[in-house]
């Protein structure tokens, strides 16, 4: 089956702190059709996100599909707290790339 990276199918893929101990990812789609098409493949899940970042699925703290916004939202626990020694991304805003490269099956 053919696949395409999520970035080719989503309008916006972004990461950001949700408090000092979490990073939250938002995937927003241009319209309901694209949102539902990607959602239906099941390619974006707590498990696939954990795999993309090489973490245990227990580190994924939540996964939401948000119909009213044509969006999928995933939140993970930070390996180290924001601003603690060794943290490389104070705002958590440059963590989206492994997510946007997840392969999504297309027809």
């Amino acid at each position, binding site marked *: 089956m053919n696949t395409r990276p999520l970035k080719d199918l989503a309008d916006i893929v972004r990461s950001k702190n949700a408090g000092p*101990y979490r990073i939250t990812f938002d995937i927003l789609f241009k319209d309901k059709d694209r949102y539902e098409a990607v959602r239906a493949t099941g390619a974006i899940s707590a498990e696939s996100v954990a795999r993309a970042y090489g973490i245990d699925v227990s580190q994924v703290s939540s996964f939401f599909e948000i119909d009213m916004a044509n969006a999928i939202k995933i939140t993970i626990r930070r390996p180290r707290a924001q601003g603690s020694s060794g943290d490389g991304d*104070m705002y958590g805003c440059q963590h989206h790339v492994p997510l946007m490269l997840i392969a999504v099956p297309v027809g």
Partner: protein
Amino acid sequence: MAAITVLTPTGTLGYGFGDDALARGMSLGPAVIAVDAGSTDPGPHYLGSGKPLVSDVSIKRELTALIRAGRAAGIPVIVGSVGGAGSGVQVERTARLVREIAQEQGLNFRLATIRSDIPIERAKRAVAAGEIVDFEAGTPLTAELLDETVTLVAQMGHEPICEALDGGADVVIAGRACDDSVIAAFPIWRGADPALAIHMGKILECGAFSAEPFAMDVMLGTVEEDSFLLEPGSTARRASVKSVAAHSLYERENPFKQSGPGHEIDLSGCSFEQVGERQVRVRGAKLTETTDYYVKLEGARLAGYRSIAIAGIRCPTTIRALDAILDDVRRKALDYFAPAPVAVAFHVYGGNGVMKELEPETAPQREIGLVIEVTAADQELAHAACHQISGAMLHYHYPGIINTSGNLAFPYSPSDLDLGPVYEFSAYHLMKVDTPTELFPVRYEDL
């Protein structure tokens, strides 16, 4: 209930807004100007050090425009989480700027300041009484952690701000406040549905980030009987269902549930409706008051002092050997300075500098930017350890070395830079209180 319009000039006071957008927004007849000035987002430094997030120059310039606009229209100006973290020194620093503005502009008004500092002993009593709940820190708050905490604040809800409005305040300079409470306070004080006012506050607190194109700029929200209406101040922007719905996901984990001081808001039944080209109507938030009233504590402690060195690496043989070199110089530094604890971190840009262990890619790199970071109990020790590591790396011998004259390209002399004190979050927990206002004293001054 009459419609109540809130004008929010920008997402963070000091980050700017358009003069035209403010003028147009004011022409729409807002009942209040309300803006947020802080967050934990820039990191624990501002809470720990008391230094301001934004310069006095920018804060004063923007506050001057807002206070002048507010006084001309006879409406209050409310600023929350002033200084970046809302600590006592930051409240005082901002209040000083407001006094200067009153004098320089020849304005007379009533200033209310609201402190949000929590005495360490008060929090320790709560620990002992079992009245602290972990929020997301993953570890319990302890008396020991509180003893190490240099600044402790709590996020106020809308109630202390309403108290200041009861007291006739024209300008409210509030310490740490829940972002949405700053915006929601005035509408709630005037009798608006708290669920709608707080949901609107959550969207408005980022200014025109909920508009398209997004920016730090003016946004207006009008609370009506059973809905609220959003509109950007600038006619060069519009609110769309997509921009508002997208923004309602931003910087938060749960898109359907919004917890705040004393309440929880259920957003699962919300709807967004496009009104004309530039406005969006939002309905459906439902509020439940929690049985007990909890406030969120934010504390910072001194983690030590930091020194860093920045260097480039271009040689492919060094880049190939880099992981082993870093492990070895780190180990030798720890041995050298033992028993004094030094924390060593490497940011390997071009490798995994941004995401560290979350980085899945391992492609070989042409050039590496290396930041050596050392945190120790005092600045002298941090500097010594940083220089020990950068020097050891510079002249490190490894198998297959082709260039024996130096492994690091330093852009600076001195190679090692002292960054001063470093703070870490020490409290991010919920504390039970008896009343919403007990921890947030309001003080008035007639200027």
